[in-house]
């Protein structure tokens, strides 16, 4: 396997230009409009609203203002598939459409997927959805085709502030830790890395530098694998089946004379 590759996104330098969203759509030939409909969210500069089958990059605009709007700040974050080292979507996929690549990224093979949508429910981050054009589940591929050709993914290539950094995970982690140190020294005590270590799903190959709790960015504080419930749930089902079986046998075995 080639060296694990991924994204390190420094949200403190994101300016919300959405160049990443545009570059992603352009390279991956994703429709710019949703079936010809262009709808505005009406309450934000964010009209993409969420990641789905046709939006593989989503720049979040988080507005944090006091009631009188005297104080406030914008948090911006370009969200994307986290390419988890232990991926929930890959775990549940029943067709084998979701694979781990030689770059340690997670890719949905659109020609194999049959649109069962189990991966949508299995993803701890709400990244995947059906692309209505293909009828299959789709998400960021970390530009697998570009990586195979030795190129950088379209989004990080287009990012004008280097908020999105692409490279070997090992190098990205060193870069991110240096940046956290720099921000801490400069007085931004809230800076930390989300998903950089292996405690979160074995590590996120797309990890973030954040300056607020994960929930503020719409990220789960404690993402888990779907399989955590497999044994417990199966055991309770078996207990239920055994109880029904035993009660059924008793009901048909203990019959009085009037039951003939």
């Amino acid at each position, binding site marked *: 396997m080639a060296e694990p590759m991924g994204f390190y996104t420094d949200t403190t330098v994101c300016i919300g230009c959405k160049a990443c969203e545009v570059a992603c759509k352009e390279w991956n030939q994703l429709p710019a409009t949703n079936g010809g409909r262009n709808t505005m969210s009406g309450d934000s500069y964010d009209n993409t609203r969420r990641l789905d089958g046709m939006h593989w990059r989503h720049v979040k605009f988080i507005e944090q203002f006091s009631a009188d709007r005297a104080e406030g700040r914008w948090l911006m974050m370009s969200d994307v598939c986290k390419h988890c080292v232990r991926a929930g979507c890959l775990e*549940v*996929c029943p067709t084998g459409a979701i694979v781990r690549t030689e770059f340690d990224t997670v890719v949905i093979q659109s020609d194999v997927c049959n649109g*069962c949508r189990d991966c949508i429910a*299995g993803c*701890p981050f709400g990244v995947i*959805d059906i692309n209505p054009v293909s009828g*299959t589940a789709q998400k960021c591929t970390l530009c697998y085709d570009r990586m195979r050709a030795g190129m950088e993914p379209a989004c990080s290539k287009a990012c004008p502030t280097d908020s999105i950094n692409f490279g070997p995970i090992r190098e990205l982690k060193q870069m991110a830790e240096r940046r956290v140190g720099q921000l801490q020294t400069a007085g931004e005590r809230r800076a930390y890395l989300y998903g950089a270590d292996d405690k979160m799903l074995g590590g996120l190959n797309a990890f973030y530098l954040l300056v607020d709790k994960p929930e503020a960015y719409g990220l789960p504080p404690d993402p888990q694998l*779907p399989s955590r419930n497999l044994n417990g749930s199966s055991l309770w089902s078996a207990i239920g089946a055994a109880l029904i079986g035993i009660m059924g046998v008793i009901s048909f075995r203990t*019959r009085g004379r009037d*039951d003939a």
Partner: protein
Amino acid sequence: MPSTFFTEAPHWRWLIVLYFFLGGIAGGCYFLAALIDLFGRMTDRPLARLGYRIAFPAVVVCGILLIVDLGRPERFWHMLLQSETWRPMFKSYSPMSFGAWGLLAFGFFALLSFVATFGPDDRRRRRVRLRPPGLLGVIVAILGGLSGFFLASYTGVLLAVTNRPIWSDTPLLGLVFVVSSASTSIALLLLLGPRRVFLIGGLRALQRFDVVVLVLELLSIIALVASLGSLARVWLNQWGALLAFGVVGVGIVVPLLLHRRAHAPTAAVVKAAALLVLLGGFLLRVVIVLSSESI
């Protein structure tokens, strides 16, 4: 906010609700038929035949529902065979993959028993019969009954092995589904079972079983709500009301009262109770599936 609330709904809606209900009926009716064949009396065999004749058509409809629900229905076979290599596609840790094979296995046994119901019910040719008491029939009934239990319960495990609110916040959905599958299947047999004199014993046994299963269903739903802990707050809305009044009230408590009121309930009362149990079982799937979908 719990981490499960940061996920997206998989758009499993009415087709899946219907599949969960019919899958429960198919698996449950087969189990009851096998139970009657293995432990009942000769006079009960028409009831078992009814169970087998419900199970197979129901599982065929289940397969159709699942295929239609896919984003690419023509690729349904990708669940069973790898599209590139044609090797079997099986993941023991993916309930949907396991379920696809389970559905196929159950369909196979349900077909054998379905076909067997059309032959003469002759005990002398027991070796070649696909229904008990012949050895082959016993094997088919046991394997079919086990795969029926699987079909009735894996859907709960499937929901649990996700990251969605409610579904992945309790380990008890499979338990609730398998118990509900038994209650709805008993109800369907009581509803469709002919009330002939020689069947009275078997029907009474089914009614006794029904009462015990309904009590167990009530307890398992209470346990389900308790297992959600503070998260059960998400049901303080129309879904909670449907669960309390539709599933528990109309679907369990009223039928239990109907069974208890008369020592020997009339056919009309039994059938009314059975209808309510079926309605409650369907509403249970509606609440479980759609309440999480709406978050």
